[in-house]
């Protein structure tokens, strides 16, 4: 039974997504009966199925919805925003009940009576004044009562009880239009599949007549066919399945026991259904075979009478338009319906037709066999195997290119293998590909709901729906995209009044565009709304302490706009509450980056905003750069790669050191260098970069750094494999892969590498080093000094070797510990010493938002020396004139034509913070 329910859930969820879109389309074009019919059919199917499965709550909700839809379809009511909202709310209700069922097989305890009331009122043509239990944001915005009072209010008003069946319209000899054909085809495919199932089930059932589950399954299928064809107007098929259903229902209730006669009758019915389906497929017409005798036999069996012989279908000689059929009595599986089927026509029994089998054959080869459902797990496995095959192919190719002169046949066949493998790989990749339209299909609904809620008018357009992406990626981008779109509607597009005032079309436009570019898929979300005001962003960012005003003044417009991706920058307070809840844009960005993508934003104030999302086609196989280090090869994912820099002979001229850390000047910017050898613990003590030849410039989280490697091997497409549990601790590696020659290579985790080498954590340092043009050169005779200002005029210097780090702290971050000012720094409490106070030139007067501090560390303890301004780092031959007896001053020197005091850091610390050196007496080397 679980299987049945699961199948039902999967189908229903799929259908509901379709419904959302259809209904929104319908609002644009209320007269489109195709769409309405489609919506109606889906709800009807859900209702019918859940009635059978015993989900009464869901059934009753779907039932009122169906009633409303049926009146809409018949043109007795007109679709207006209110009704659309109500119907959408009903879909949501259905969805929630389905989720409950999925979770614990119960329908949940939510009460939908209000929604149902509203729906029935709307059905009667009244307007639902009160609010309905809509889950969405639509609450506030449920538009005013229907503009057009529905016609024919009286006509149906006497028919309010929910048990009333949907008035099924029976089309005489239906004309099926192009669009309808798709619906019919779907129906045919489904029915063929189901009928095959019934054949098997019936045979099984004969062996085991008491199997309730089998019976239920058969009953359900026949019931679905009946319901659907009733809606599609295939009355003949409907009447046939109806009697079959009655018989099955009695069997299921245990009032009849399956015997060979009944089984044959049912099988005959199945054949007949197939036959009708076949003729529908060929000429959209139910054929002119008369099934009167079969129907009669079935109904006789239902009543428990015996029949001598089960006849086949008989050909009818005259075109025999089926009579109007009463709508199927009740969609709830009628227990023990012993009444004769409504439309049983009792014509004289005539013997079977010969042409039956061949027609069936024809039909079968048609629509039903062009698609199958495959387990995603199986596809993943295939994908893996193909990955292996690609690797094996590479090995063979390498081998064959080595000794190609020996065996030309081998070379030829390996080339053939090459071609086949490539094609196979493409093919398998394609099976996992889905059009992006699958995700987009729910956006019109989202936009519509949101637009109504915000009282805006938004039109959504989509380009490149058919662009295909790997299924896992499709899943991964669903939420980020939804968020972006919500943002665009909520914050981007202005209200109609504003738009008119700004000379724009009243209706805002939102364009989704997807296309391939350079092996990636680009998704653009373009709106013509108000754009982002950089000034506003700046103000907000400062308010939220994302940046300081000093930082802000240095930022360009683009940088400011990109601040919306910064963590902590939420727009929650802006305008409405619709977006800005839960995830911020920073989450969008991280989620997209997680799958190797990137987000970029362009915005013109008052003109609109474009968000560009770039994502890879697939996750399983990634392009990588293979580098060598210590004799081994390592793969670096190309997504992290920016450029390669080759160091020339005088490597030491280009690579400079800041306090023992190598940096490289890349087009005027300092690039911190990380030596791969050293990071992997492979050099023995020496930290020279002599052997290093190449800098791989990498990017992670907007930070650039250079990875120094010995050599570059190649670029290769690699299949990422996880590392085993024994290696979980090694966070420098993201996985392993097998190279073309069959050897294993490790994949470097650029993020992990950056973290372990602490490139990532030193944002502040980088900002500083950029600002204060650090110039350092290795030289024995000279000294490196950090020069800074203390107070208004004082200039002081510290020997650079004693400087652990330069940091910026916000004044607001300073806390008190006893008499000391302290800050939290890298998980420790670090005392601060205000040098301006120590040297009493004047007080640390002006309150700045940002303090600059020199961090001095010894024995694992740090002290921050707060200075007023970092001026420069100089490298000079300094002649210190001793003799200063001021405490804390080593001496005085002339540096850059200015008199500068050299600070005795240890003495300063000792005199200000008692106990800092109590425990140990470290040797300080100075000068």
């Amino acid at each position: 039974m679980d299987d049945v329910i699961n199948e039902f859930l999967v189908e229903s969820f799929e259908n509901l997504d379709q419904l959302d879109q259809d209904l929104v389309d319908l609002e644009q074009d209320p007269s489109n009966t195709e769409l309405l019919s489609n919506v109606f059919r889906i709800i009807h199917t859900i209702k019918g199925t859940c009635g059978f499965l015993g989900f009464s709550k869901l059934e009753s909700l779907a039932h009122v919805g169906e009633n409303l839809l049926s009146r809409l379809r018949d043109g007795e009511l007109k679709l207006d925003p209110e009704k659309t909202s109500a119907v959408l709310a009903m879909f949501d209700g259905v969805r929630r009940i389905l989720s409950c069922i999925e979770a614990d097989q119960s329908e949940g305890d939510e009460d939908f009576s209000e929604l149902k009331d509203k729906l029935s009122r709307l059905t009667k043509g009244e307007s639902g004044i009160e609010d309905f239990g809509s889950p969405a944001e639509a609450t506030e915005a449920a538009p005013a009562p229907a503009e057009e009072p529905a016609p024919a209010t009286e006509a149906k008003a006497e028919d309010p009880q929910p048990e009333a069946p949907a008035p099924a319209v029976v089309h005489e000899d239906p004309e099926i239009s192009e669009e309808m054909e798709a619906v019919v085809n779907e129906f045919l495919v489904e029915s063929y599949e189901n009928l095959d199932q019934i054949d098997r089930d019936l045979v099984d059932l004969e062996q085991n007549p008491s199997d309730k589950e089998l019976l239920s399954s058969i009953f359900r299928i026949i019931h679905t066919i009946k319901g659907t064809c009733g809606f599609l107007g295939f009355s003949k098929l409907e009447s046939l399945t109806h009697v079959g259903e009655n018989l099955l229902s009695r069997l299921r209730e245990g009032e009849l026991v399956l015997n060979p006669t009944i089984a044959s009758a049912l099988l005959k019915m199945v054949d007949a259904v197939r036959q009708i389906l076949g003729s529908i497929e060929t000429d959209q017409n139910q054929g002119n075979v008369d099934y009167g005798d079969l129907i009669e036999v079935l109904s006789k069996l239902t009543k428990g009478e015996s029949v001598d012989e089960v006849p086949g279908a008989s050909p009818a000689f005259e075109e025999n338009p089926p009579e109007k059929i009463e709508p199927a009595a009740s969609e709830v599986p009628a227990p023990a319906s012993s009444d004769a089927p409504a439309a049983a026509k009792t014509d004289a029994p005539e013997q079977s037709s010969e042409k039956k089998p061949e027609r069936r054959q024809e039909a079968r080869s048609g629509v039903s066999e062009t698609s199958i459902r495959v387990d995603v797990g199986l596809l993943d496995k295939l994908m893996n195997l193909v990955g292996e095959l690609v690797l094996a192919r590479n090995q063979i190719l390498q081998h064959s290119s080595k000794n190609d002169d020996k065996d030309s046949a081998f070379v030829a066949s390996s080339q053939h293998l090459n071609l086949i493998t490539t094609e196979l790989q493409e093919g398998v990749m394609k099976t996992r590909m889905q059009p992006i339209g699958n995700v987009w299909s729910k956006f019109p609904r989202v936009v519509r709901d949101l637009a109504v809620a915000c009282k805006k008018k938004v039109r959504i357009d989509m380009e490149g729906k058919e662009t295909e992406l790997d299924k896992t990626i499709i899943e991964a981008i669903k939420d980020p995209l939804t968020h972006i779109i919500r943002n665009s509607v909520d914050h981007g597009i202005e209200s109609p009044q504003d738009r008119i005032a700004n000379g724009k079309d009243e209706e805002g436009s939102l364009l989704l565009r997807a296309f391939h570019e350079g092996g990636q898929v680009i998704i653009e979300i373009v709106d013509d709304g108000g754009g982002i005001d950089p000034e506003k962003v700046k103000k907000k960012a400062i308010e939220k302490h994302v940046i300081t005003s000093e930082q802000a003044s240095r930022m360009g417009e683009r940088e400011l706009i990109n601040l919306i991706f910064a963590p902590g920058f939420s727009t929650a307070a802006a305008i409405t509450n619709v977006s800005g809840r839960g995830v911020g844009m920073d989450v969008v960005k991280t989620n997209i980056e997680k799958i190797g993508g990137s987000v970029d934003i362009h915005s013109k104030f008052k003109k609109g905003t474009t968000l560009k999302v770039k994502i890879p086609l697939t996750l399983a196989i990634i392009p990588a750069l293979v580098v060598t280090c210590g004799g081994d090869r390592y793969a670096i994912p190309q997504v992290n790669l920016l450029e390669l820099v080759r160091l020339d002979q005088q490597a030491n001229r280009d690579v400079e050191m800041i306090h023992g850390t190598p940096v490289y000047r890349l087009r005027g910017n300092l690039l911190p260098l990380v030596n791969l050898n050293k990071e992997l613990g492979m050099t023995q003590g020496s930290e020279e970069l002599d052997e290093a030849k190449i800098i791989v410039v990498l990017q992670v989280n907007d930070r650039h750094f250079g990875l120094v490697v010995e050599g570059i091997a190649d670029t290769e497409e690699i299949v990422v494999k996880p590392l085993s549990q024994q290696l979980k601790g090694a966070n420098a590696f993201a996985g392993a892969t097998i190279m073309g020659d069959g050897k294993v290579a490790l994949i470097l985790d650029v993020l992990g590498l950056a973290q372990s080498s602490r490139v990532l954590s030193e944002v502040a340092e980088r900002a500083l080093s950029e600002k204060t043009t650090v110039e350092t050169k290795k030289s024995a005779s000279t000294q490196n000094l950090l020069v800074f200002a203390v107070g208004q005029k004082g200039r002081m210097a510290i020997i650079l070797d004693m400087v652990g780090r330069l940091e910026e702290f916000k004044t607001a971050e300073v806390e008190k510990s006893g008499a000391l000012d302290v800050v939290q720094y890298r998980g420790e409490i670090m005392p601060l010493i205000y040098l301006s106070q120590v040297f009493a030139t004047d007080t640390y007067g002006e309150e700045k938002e940002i303090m600059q501090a020199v961090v001095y560390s010894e024995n694992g303890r740090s002290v921050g020396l707060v200075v007023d301004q970092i001026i420069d780092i100089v490298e000079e031959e300094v002649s210190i004139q001793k003799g200063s007896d001021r405490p804390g001053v080593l001496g005085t020197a002339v540096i850059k034509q200015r008199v500068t005091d050299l600070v005795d850091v240890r003495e300063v610390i000792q005199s200000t913070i008692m106990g800092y050196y109590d425990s140990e007496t470290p040797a300080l080397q100075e000068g």
Partner: protein
Amino acid sequence: MEVEKQFCTFYVDDLFMGVEVSKVQEVLRYQEMTSVPLSSDIVSGLINLRGQIVTAIDLRKRLELNERPDGQLPMNVVVRTNEGVVSMLVDSIGDVLEVPDNAFETPPETIDGITRHLVLGVYKLADSLLLILDTEKTVNIESVPDEAKVKHT
């Protein structure tokens, strides 16, 4: 009637050890390995087992025995564990032995810490003792008995 069990046997330093045959996927000659920097030195490296990447752990190091002499190439005993397939590097491979159940005994208290932790028990054979290795504990390289941990660090 005696119940017999089959063990795949091998030698590690001076120990004669065995693993239940059903747990052994295959036995391989020396395979080229890719070393993993920054990992525990018990992990010798990664080998390519027909497209599957398998971690090789050195039993000598795992059992805290002497280093394998230079020039002696280890053999791979590839075992199936809950953590996936893992290769154990051993010195040489012995026969598959059928041993009677009644020859089994739990490891004596006096065996050294880490070995006792990883050994399920001992079979008393006519001419030698067969130590049965607990593969699950062996491949879980963080699993170290408390007493041995002290020695370890």
